């Protein structure tokens, strides 16, 4: 028990996490590239044309992974924020701040690719249905989180304020996910879910899953890079950062 706790808290300090993150980043970039190339290859060259939508459906290979990531990153961000609030750990707040811009990027990509998809298929760039509106609120939550944190000078207070906002916003995630089930919407239901077999041709599904993996790896890589930057900035007066900079 004590041994396990020791290991947990060892990597919870920026000082020991900084070099570990630095060693992991190239691997995640490499995996992102491999999965990205494989996913796009399967998606654009192997997967068949769709019976209804023709070639236009292929935007799904970016749209669905981006939407998944936008929701999942928010959950991870809120988890770190809550952890920081409960345990007062320095690293948690840094991780939450590091994830927010990537989450916002994916929420924006989801809405943008959705608009590009909606115009030719539905006949509208945008409609105020429950799915689209709740995803837009998610983008605003990310932007609000980033704005709130950067408006407060003291990083510890900024973390706390951001954490409360992030935790309150968590309620939106199940609303986004289940919106197509709870209400009738223009947006179609989920093709892939835990409760039923996927309603897509196998190669299409593989392309989408590979692209989703690529987005995961990319997100981890950029979040770690950003976290390292935040660590250096916030801990610039500490011994370990001075020692690190003296070495260079």
């Amino acid at each position, binding site marked *: 028990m004590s041994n396990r706790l020791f290991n947990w808290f060892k990597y919870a300090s920026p000082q020991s996490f900084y070099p570990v993150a630095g060693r992991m980043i190239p691997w995640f970039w490499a995996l992102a590239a491999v999965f990205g190339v494989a996913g796009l290859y399967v998606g654009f060259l192997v997967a*068949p*044309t*769709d*019976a*209804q*939508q023709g070639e236009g*459906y292929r935007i*799904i290979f970016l749209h669905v992974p981006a939407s998944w990531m936008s929701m999942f990153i928010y959950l991870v961000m809120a988890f770190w924020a*809550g952890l920081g*609030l*409960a*345990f*007062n750990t320095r690293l948690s707040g840094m991780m939450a701040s590091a994830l927010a811009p990537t989450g916002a990027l994916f929420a924006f990509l989801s809405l943008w690719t959705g608009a590009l998809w909606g115009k*030719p*298929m*539905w*006949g*509208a760039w945008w*409609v*105020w*249905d*429950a799915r689209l509106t709740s995803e837009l609120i998610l983008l605003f939550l990310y932007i609000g989180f980033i704005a709130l944190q950067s408006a407060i000078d003291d990083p510890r207070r900024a973390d706390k304020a951001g954490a409360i906002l992030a*935790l*309150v916003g*968590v*309620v939106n995630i199940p*609303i986004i996910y289940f919106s197509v089930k*709870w*209400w*009738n*919407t*223009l947006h*179609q*239901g*989920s*093709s892939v879910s835990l409760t039923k077999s996927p*309603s*897509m*041709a196998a190669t*299409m599904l593989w392309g989408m899953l590979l692209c989703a993996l690529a987005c995961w790896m990319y997100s981890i890589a950029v979040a770690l890079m950003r976290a390292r930057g935040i660590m250096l900035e916030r801990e610039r007066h500490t011994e370990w950062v001075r020692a690190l900079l003296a070495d260079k």
Partner: protein
Amino acid sequence: MLKARHKRIALIVGGLVILAGVATLVLNAFQSNLVFFFSPTQVAAGEAPKGKTFRIGGLVKEGSIKREADGVTLRFIVTDTEKDLTVAYKGILPDLFREGKGAVAQGKLGDDGLFVASEVLAKHDENYMPPEATKALDDAGNRAAANKAAQTLKQ
């Protein structure tokens, strides 16, 4: 130290539970305002707002799309397989607007029961498959129907 930490965790968890409860109640209260469209059954039951613009949604009935004499107005029937609603529309239709597929129309319901639409959107489903697979499914469906018919005849 440990106590303060436990207190904070309890506050966070408690706050989230209360928030989830409030959200559930609010969403339930607004249930009828959150729907994007009404089904023909709901319209027939008088649930749709009268004299106001609203959206109806359902499947475009097979063989129901007809062009009127003026050459630009289109009439089609939107069905949820229980009730039908005739829609008149003048304008551009999305590519995926097809008989037997989903559609959402925005407009007003006239006293004569005709829904005059100002905008028509196509609603596609979550199934993605190559054209050959659709054909195979259709063929299988036709074979099953033919078998059933043959059996009914035998009885």
